[in-house]
């Protein structure tokens, strides 16, 4: 079952969903709108083993994403829940502009709580601004007992590129 907007509010107040900063006006009928954080990582090349990224701060006048290139961003908010599973996607208003906010992996694990890394791919050149409402997160009921997620990305609060096979076991 997917939580309605009023249930999301109830569970934020009850401490079962954590969203910080939280603004009630960003609640939708069955999701919560998140904002774009200020840091982007821009793909600069491939060294034969892993992709290289350059970190930039989005300027006041915005930053243009080019099609055919992948960028990493992050949510402005720290979001998590120890009770519900999450699905992180874009807003339809951004999809209508051809902006992917994630590449295939929209599932947020129960007990993860951090700023979420976004995988930005533009089908059409688009300008992004820091702090704009860019995506939505929905919350889903679990069936079964919850075991704490202890994945390798669970603690990261900035755009995080993939760990490569050589670093994965460190």
């Amino acid at each position: 079952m997917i939580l309605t907007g009023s249930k999301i509010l109830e569970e934020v107040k009850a401490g079962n969903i954590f969203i910080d900063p939280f603004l009630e006006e960003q609640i939708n009928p069955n999701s919560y709108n998140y904002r774009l954080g200020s840091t982007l990582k821009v793909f600069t090349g491939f060294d034969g083993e892993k992709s290289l990224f350059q970190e930039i701060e989005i300027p006041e006048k915005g930053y243009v994403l080019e099609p055919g290139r992948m960028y990493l961003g992050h949510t402005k908010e720290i979001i998590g829940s120890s009770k519900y599973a999450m699905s992180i996607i874009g807003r339809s208003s951004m999809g209508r502009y051809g902006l992917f906010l994630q590449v295939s992996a929209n599932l947020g694990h129960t007990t993860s709580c951090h700023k979420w890394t976004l995988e930005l791919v533009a089908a059409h050149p688009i300008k992004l601004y820091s702090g704009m409402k860019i995506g939505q997160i929905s919350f889903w009921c679990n069936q079964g007992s919850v075991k704490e997620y202890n994945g390798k990305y669970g603690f990261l609060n900035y755009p995080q590129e993939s760990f490569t096979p050589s670093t994965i076991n460190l």
Partner: protein
Amino acid sequence: MILTGEKIKEEVANNKIEISPFDQQRVTTNSCDLSLGRTIIRYTSPIIDPKSEPSYEEITIPEDGFVLKAGDFVLGHSNEKIGSDFYVPIIHGKSGTARMGLFVHITADLIDIGSHGVSTFQLYATLPVKLYPNMLIAQVSFWVPFGDIVLYQGKYQNSTGPRVSMVYKDFKYDIFKK
């Protein structure tokens, strides 16, 4: 929980799900297929700035089809008007569409409860693909909500054709919160 096809038929008959026109033949085990309408939209602004209204052109898909090149991105729409005040719809491509390398939506598959209208498709081709009017291109599934329902009253309500992004309205009315 996701509704089965049989439950979708039942709830269409009970007026708890709107799919119009509705053809029982298009109901699958967990969804209902959606067909492509004739109108598509292509943005003509070289760079989209979410703060201003985008420029775009409307194209009618001819009977003998319209080719998208790899990398092309256009908006399309479903012929069917869909929505529910009781369930949450989610849009998916049909697997046959996906196997042609065509995205039917970009990032936002989730529809707000209480939102009614034709669905805007975000068509993004990774391979050349030919679109025909009325082809079965997508499917919609319905999910059970948990909690009190407040219905959608947003800016895309009652769409009758493809709708471009109106996110610029956010920037007009929403002071940029830092």
